[in-house]
């Protein structure tokens, strides 16, 4: 499990850095991007040589237009899934949004994580990557 590659896309730099540190501490290799556009670029660049094993996408952040958008992460989710249909994706949000969670699942997200205790996120990531390994 350790050494697996995770992409975090979140415009909240401090939140992203904190998650990155916690996941790195758990043994993962973590890369961070701060917008949909940057996230897609980083993901595409890694596809050939060392593709990501999992993506954590913030729900509300600058979309592909560059402007803040409610639910921009869902668009990025669809694009990443188009590039790698088997990619486990966790959608991150600051609060409970049932409708958005439903849409995220319909677009192929494996989990919807309400930001809070990072250890719970580590547990969730571990479970998803174990599932990935057993597939």
């Amino acid at each position: 499990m350790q050494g697996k590659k995770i992409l975090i896309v979140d415009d909240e730099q401090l939140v992203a850095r904190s998650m990155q540190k916690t996941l790195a501490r758990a043994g993962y290799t973590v890369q961070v991007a701060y917008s949909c556009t940057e996230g897609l670029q980083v993901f595409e660049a890694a596809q050939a040589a060392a593709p990501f094993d999992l993506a954590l996408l913030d729900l509300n952040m600058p979309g592909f237009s560059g402007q803040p958008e409610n639910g921009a992460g869902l668009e990025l989710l669809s694009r990443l899934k188009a590039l790698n249909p088997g990619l486990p994706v966790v959608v991150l949000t600051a609060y409970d949004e049932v409708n958005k969670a439903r849409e995220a699942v319909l677009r192929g997200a494996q989990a919807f994580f309400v930001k809070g205790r990072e250890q719970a996120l580590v547990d969730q990531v571990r479970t998803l990557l174990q599932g990935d390994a057993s597939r």
Partner: protein
Amino acid sequence: MSNYDMPNENELRYVERRARLLHAANQVGRQVTSILELNELLPKMVDIICDAYGFYYAGVFLIDETGKWAVLRAGRGAAGAVMIAQGHKLEVGGQSMIGWAMMYRQARIALDVGEDRVHFRNPLLPHTRSEIALPLAVGEKVLGAVTVQSIEERAFSEEDVLTLQTMADHLAVAIHNAQAIKALERANQQLLQAKTYEALTAATTQAIHWIGNKALPITSTVERMKADLTSGDIDRESLLEDLQLIEDSARLIVEVKENLLGPVREQQPRPAMLDDVARAAAAQVGILPDQLKVDVMRRTPLALADTTQLVRVLGNLFINALEAQATHLTITVGPAKEAGFVALDIHDNGKGIPPEMLNNIWAAFVSTKPGHTGLGLTACLHVINQLHGRISVSSQLGSGATFHILLPAAPDHHLPDVTAEDMNILLIDDDDRWAAFALDALKSLGVSAARSLQPEGTPDLILVDEALEAMPVTAVIESFKAANRVHQLVVITAALKVDRVTAYLQAGVRNAVLKPYTVDEFGDLLTRR
């Protein structure tokens, strides 16, 4: 003249009465189109009817919200006032003539009311000998009825009935319109309340989420640090970074508090030289003199503003411009096209604001920049509104942005009765518009004053401008300390800030005060020194 040509007495009375009726009908027509307030319209109607016809009494009943009762809303004279005070009402479809007229939407006349079984015997109107009740209706809808009463038996001719019913019809239309407008106003009020509540809830929810989001890294980082420290696996660099994460997150939350509470502080508007306030704000946020151009148009009046709050607004706008990669700012101050206002335009050569963001930039918690509260421009808008001014923005992507501020002009000031003869003042300042004004003002107060950037002469008082282009004010304070004259220094500033004032006083300066922009204020400064 023969008998044939002479109109008889009855004919004369008829013609006169007809003329009065036409006049009354005209009056009604005029009133109903001009008055939409029922409390004003209805009493006028009963007066016109009684005065025109010489009737004993007239009253207007309107059906209440239950639809069962017609309530007296206007009544002639003392009897009418008493009945309104008693809440006089009649049942729709009941035994009264009013009740009948509303039920059947027809006029009803009782020519000998004493014998009419449906007439309501009213002790307040003991002389009524005949009555007509006229329905007030618009289309299918009955709104109420009008009662007209006379002390004469058989007082109502066919022509009277026709004219009165026409008047009642006009009145009904006016009542219908007034009620429709009232209903519309009520609906609008309810909508406004709902919208206000919705906006407040949305703003509060947004604020809570925003703050919660900023606080997230604090709890997560503390948890991670605890785990690191417990495990004994200590990476000093990592721990330092964690502390920085906590500090940065906490700072963002503190900034929200400052941005939300800052503009709410009580404002103390006073006459202000806007170009000088702009220079002070630029100095405070570290804009270099060669990055700033200030143009002042002729005959620019002073504006009425709290300069400390205004420095906060301009500082926010300047920082935004720098963050939008602006390398140069142009400030133009002049009389506004709108009389009684001063215009302040701030143009930057940054990357500009995308058109889709232009409508959103004043909203709270909206920012395209990471690590920003999205409250800076909201605070600017709030401060300018509080100063009874206006702020707007125009921008073209790639060609920078221009913020337009309008502030009320200050009233003209008279010379104060202060003379400080034999007083010698040294002004430490750049050679700018404010310094020229200050020297003139001091001269008009009978004070001997000179401007310099060095300690020179033997002044009684030394005023030093906080926003110096030539050197930082702290350097001036140090040089006066070295010359053992720092106690003579008074720092003058457009924006009083606790941290800076404390530092100046600790360095030994006599005082730090708001910069005067009128001769009156200079007079006060000299008196208080």
